[in-house]
């Protein structure tokens, strides 16, 4: 974390949005946050940095401190100790007694629930942030309608929140957060209140919209899939501390801690989209079901659980199966099963895949570390997702 010490040392201004000049002097530097905050009997103590346009996923189980981090970033809770700055402007510095109130920070928040203002139409909800910024009613409404269209809710502009479904309300809430042109976008479990039918579409919308965002974004989630699809980098939190961080692909594909492995729990094969399959850079193809369509050649991942993988010595028969040649690099017990780790490309260790198989299967095939085998998975068990570049 040596890189962000220079941010604060040269910053001398007071607590307004334009007071502190960027230390580096070349444009936006993104979000830098160091937070220590006690809540009951647990303490959140972490630091993170998010570059402009980058999406950082904060992963972890319930009670890990994920949402507490967001309250410190919005300013609704004051940490015991901490520094938060955005593009060189200090929002919080407990040592210098700087604490910019929420409404002068420019944070956009999309929470689990939409929290649309019940007395305003969808259109006026979205126009709210523009109106507070001093935009006149008509241009504000025009811009709001544009944002509703971008979140596929243009036809709902006259509806009251009570007349919207959960998924529609969440889309309107996203439009409202983005329309205010936030300097930092915070997403707090934005999909967890949606049902199984609406969550994938909303996830796809978020991916599209976040791709166009220039401000940094922090996404709090307990769902690894959200991180895979939306985030460039992940931070894994447990009991208030960072246990792992790095680029999404690396952290999830090759977890350094057992804890991350447990919450990651999914295999990823990265490549480019080609219809209902993903083509890997080395020429492999993995077939699956398309969850959210991606344009041909766009970055995509085939996602499947280790329990869906079967191990074979020879290329298995049957067309709906994907057979991925791997070299076994690890073997450890995991409950009733044995988890095998297979490397697909020795030059890229982060592409390792996991398979959970029975001890009987391991014994029958006489598997050893170093063996060349095939990981087979049915296409129906594989979900194809467009992914962020991370």
């Amino acid at each position: 974390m040596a890189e962000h010490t220079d941010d604060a040392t040269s910053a001398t201004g007071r607590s307004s949005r334009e007071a502190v000049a960027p230390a580096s002097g070349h444009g936006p530097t993104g979000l830098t946050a160091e937070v220590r905050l006690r809540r009951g009997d647990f303490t959140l103590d972490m630091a993170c940095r998010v570059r402009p346009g980058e999406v950082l996923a904060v992963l972890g189980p319930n009670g890990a401190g994920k949402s507490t981090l967001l309250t410190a970033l919005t300013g609704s809770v004051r940490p015991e100790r901490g520094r938060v700055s955005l593009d060189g402007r200090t929002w919080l510095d407990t040592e210098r007694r700087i604490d910019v109130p929420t409404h002068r920070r420019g944070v956009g928040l999309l929470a689990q629930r939409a929290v649309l203002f019940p007395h305003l139409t969808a259109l006026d909800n979205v126009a709210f942030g523009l109106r507070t910024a001093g935009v006149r009613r008509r241009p504000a409404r025009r811009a709001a309608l544009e944002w509703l269209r971008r979140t596929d809710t243009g036809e709902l502009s006259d509806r009251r929140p009570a007349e919207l479904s959960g998924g529609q309300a969440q889309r309107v809430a996203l439009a409202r957060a983005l329309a205010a042109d936030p300097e930092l976008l915070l997403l707090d479990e934005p999909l967890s209140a949606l049902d199984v039918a609406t969550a994938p579409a909303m996830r796809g919308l978020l991916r599209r919209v976040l791709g166009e965002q220039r401000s940094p974004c922090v996404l709090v989630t307990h769902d690894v899939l959200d991180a895979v699809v939306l985030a460039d980098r992940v931070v894994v939190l447990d009991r208030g501390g960072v246990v792992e961080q790095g680029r999404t692909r690396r952290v999830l594909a090759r977890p350094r801690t057992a804890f991350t492995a447990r919450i990651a729990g999914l295999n990823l094969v990265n490549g480019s989209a080609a219809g209902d399959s993903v083509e890997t850079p080395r020429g492999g193809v993995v077939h699956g079901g398309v969850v959210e369509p991606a344009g041909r050649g766009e970055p995509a991942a085939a996602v499947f659980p280790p329990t869906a993988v079967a191990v074979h010595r020879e290329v298995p028969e049957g067309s709906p199966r994907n057979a991925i040649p791997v070299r076994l690099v690890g073997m450890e017990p995991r409950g009733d099963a044995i988890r095998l780790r297979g490397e697909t490309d020795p030059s890229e260790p982060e592409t390792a895949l996991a398979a959970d198989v029975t001890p009987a299967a391991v014994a029958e095939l006489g598997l050893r570390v170093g063996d060349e085998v095939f990981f087979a998975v049915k296409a129906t068990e594989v979900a194809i997702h467009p992914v962020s570049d991370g």
Partner: protein
Amino acid sequence: MRGSAPPLGRLVPRRAREGERPVGVPLPLRLPALLALALIVLPVLGLFARVDPARLPTLLTGPAALTALGLSVRTALAATLLALLLGGPLAVVLARSRFPGLRFVRGCVLLPLVLPPVVGGLALLYLLGRTGPLGGPLRDWFGLSLPYTTAAVVLAQTFVAMPFLVVSLEGALRAAGTEYERVSATLGAGPWLTFRRVTLPMLLPALGSGLVLTFARALGEFGATITFAGSLRGTTRTLPLAIYTEAQADVDAAVAMSLLLVAIALLVILVARPKAVEGRG
């Protein structure tokens, strides 16, 4: 989950399903319940029996009744306005701020609800009377004397009725929670703008019913008014005071004016439907 769903953790009464048999009421409760209803309804019906319908128009349009009615409506409206301007902000402070002694302050607000109004009137008299700790300086410096004036009526009514507004607004603010206000802040709205654009519009239904209750209470105020403002015809003799005075001389006139108050009360309950009264606040 729909957008209008109540915040998690708030209890929502289950609606009776269609065709569902109501939960039975045990027999021993039915007779006392009937008696309770009779105790409320029968005296009011008795009023109607006592009055001669033919004389009602003349009784109600008599100068005594008209003067008292006019004064009552004016003072009760003024008291309601005063309660709104002072009690509204107090409700927001009680619901949204944290400071030591908050519970104590909240208890003080309830005092006029529990205190006999006569005691309230007496307290006002000794504070604002000629020799009172506040009344003395007011008279010496500004030549103002409040007791036995129309302003005293308004003050007495406000003292007694304001807690109704404060309590109903504070309850509504707490029920609404701070979630919307926090979202408003993330959208760049400062506290004052958030109050005007978010808090206030969401508070309007509760404000309406709170104001109606406050007005009704102010209109019926008797004890504090007669102690602090006296019963001077035209300046401080409001409708309840006029009824009390007339009851000694012309019972029919008193009953006619009582019916007027009953009519206003029914109007309040039926038209304005204050939520607190209907028990689904």
